[in-house]
């Protein structure tokens, strides 16, 4: 591993140690009024959505037989594995008693949405590890594994939305809606595809693999359909949930502005851009749309977790410097690890091609 990569990965350890000994109050601005903050919104809820591309690609290739995506599978699985690994890492950082988390296995309480997310996440990461490390022996099992992974991912992503159904009294009616589980699922699918598009685009720029235009064929319309579904659910939630009359005292200017910006730049604008064939077919176009979609999902998760919460004392939660540091570190570490192992995958593939080429030539 390159030296800067190692330095980046080790840089967060002092912070982890400080959090372990000083407690959450020392490293966050969280209070009893705002018990979940930036690490939850950015690293867990957004992170889980961004890592959703892996099962989509695996299902496309092994279940739907879309073979042109096959070269992407190892990269997508790697991304999903590292992404979900860092969701779990952030969860351990954010949970108050990380040494006791095994209690959710020995003493599960099945009515808890949080329990379901934890179990689905653990099972899903396990299936992905099997797919990654199982190698060629599992060739026959690829399709069933992809089906299982897809089912787990659907349950996982939607249950992340279900979590927030517990707080009708706290979350602004702009965001709160019984369709939150479906909203989380659709936006995670869109953001997952978007993350893969960007990763492929960057790998292409770095000369690791040529951006095959076949990779994004269909991605544009798929994202458009997901965004359109998302928009319909949001409008439905707004009308049915009374978001227009907005009874909570916290539907004030900044909250409404955040909501409009999130919906406008994260859902409507990318969907409108995708209507243009130029955007759908060109790699820069679709990468640009992907950036917007990811940004929109991040804003959405921040909205549900932080922005849309009432603050009776009039004091708004704003993350502390160490929260930004921790959140940034987890993202940077995940990207670093992905970039490193993605490079290794690319090297492996190019050496395989070199070995195979003479055989093909002699065969002819």
């Amino acid at each position: 591993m390159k030296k800067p990569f190692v330095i980046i990965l080790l840089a967060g350890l002092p912070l982890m140690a400080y959090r372990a000994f000083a407690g959450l109050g020392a490293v966050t601005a969280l209070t009893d009024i705002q018990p979940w903050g930036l690490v939850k919104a950015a690293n867990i809820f957004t992170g889980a959505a961004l890592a959703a591309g892996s099962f989509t690609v695996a299902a496309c290739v092994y279940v739907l037989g879309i073979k042109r995506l096959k070269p992407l599978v190892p990269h997508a699985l790697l991304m999903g594995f590292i992404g979900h690994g860092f969701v779990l890492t952030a969860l351990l950082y954010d949970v108050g008693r990380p040494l006791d988390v095994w209690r959710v296995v020995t003493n599960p309480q099945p009515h808890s949405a949080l329990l379901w997310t934890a179990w689905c996440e653990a099972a899903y990461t396990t299936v992905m590890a099997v797919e990654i490390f199982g190698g060629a022996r599992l060739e026959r099992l690829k399709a069933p594994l992809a089906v299982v992974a897809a089912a787990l991912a659907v349950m996982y992503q939607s249950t992340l939305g279900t979590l927030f159904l517990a707080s009708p009294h706290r979350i602004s009616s702009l965001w709160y809606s019984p369709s939150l589980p479906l909203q989380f699922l659709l936006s995670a699918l869109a953001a997952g595809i978007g993350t893969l598009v960007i990763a492929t685009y960057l790998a292409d720029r770095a000369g690791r693999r040529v951006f095959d235009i076949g990779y994004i064929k269909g991605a544009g319309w798929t994202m458009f359909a997901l965004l359109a579904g998302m928009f319909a659910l949001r409008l439905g939630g707004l009308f049915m949930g009374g978001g227009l009359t907005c009874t909570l005292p916290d539907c004030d200017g900044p909250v409404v502005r955040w909501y409009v910006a999130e919906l406008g730049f994260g859902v409507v604008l990318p969907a409108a851009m995708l209507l243009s064939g130029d955007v759908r077919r060109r790699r820069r176009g679709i990468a640009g749309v992907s950036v917007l979609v990811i940004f929109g999902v991040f804003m959405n998760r921040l909205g549900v977790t932080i922005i849309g919460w009432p603050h009776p004392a009039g004091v708004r939660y704003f993350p502390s410097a160490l929260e930004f540091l921790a959140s940034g570190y987890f993202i940077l570490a995940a990207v670093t690890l992905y970039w490193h192992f993605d490079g290794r995958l690319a090297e492996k593939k190019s050496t395989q091609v070199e070995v195979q080429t003479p055989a093909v030539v002699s065969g002819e």
Partner: protein
Amino acid sequence: MDSRFRGNDSIVLLWRSQHRFLFGYFLFFQRESNRGLESMVYSVLIDTVRCIGCQGCQVACKSWNGMPGERTSLGATMGNPAALDSSTYTNIGFTELDSPGGTAWHFAKHQCMHCTEPACAAACPAGALVKDPEGPVVYRKGLCIGCRYCMLACPFQIPKFEWDKAFPYIRKCTFCSERVGAGEQPACTRACPSGALTFGPRDKIVQEARRRLAAGGGRYTGRIYGLDEAGGTSWIYISGAEFGELGLAENVAARPYGTYTWDALSKTPLAGAGAAAVLAGLWFIVGRRASLQGQDGNQPGGDKG
């Protein structure tokens, strides 16, 4: 469900047969006698009209639970400490309200409502919060993972977190479950000198609340807070002012809050199974098409879907 003494029961029986004189046995005997009455769900009536704002309940609570005092300051109202936190399970809110007879002070005690079907217990992934059949919502701290989901779920915003500790716990009013289990009443109701807090079986307590409302002659608003809120609570209020003005949570729905998530959760396995069934079906169709095309000598399945 008797979480507090589960696992000790066999030891208790052993004790009972041989050491009837022991004080420990006395406690358990009290508990056994309570258990005999099936419908014995305990409740507390808070009558803010009778409250004189002496804060004796706060002192009794701190003292019984061994909680440290905290540095406070005199605010606009005389509530002190101003809010509940991880070392204050109960406090009195002081509210000045204009009424036809002049300005009046209203005192309202705040603490965990001990819901009949608690949202916190439904939210907890490890079963650290459970409803005791006798009424208290009990926190089994050994099971807590510190996820703070109970804090999001509680419609009364009661669970508090020990932010300053490296190994923190959730803190909230315990309904003195160890006292109630031993046939004693909670420390706060015991300390109340003015009859503002009445402890007893829930049906009797509700009856008493209705009796006071009927006999009150305009001193009460006529509503009982906690009868329907969040599906019913063990602690109920009657007062001479609107409950929202006294700092109690307003617009609490009349259904247990755990049902909001359960409505979706109970359908989630179906969604997962449905997704798996659809994908498996597509897999079968795609594979079939590919093999048929292969027989026809066409190119095997390429870009479809």
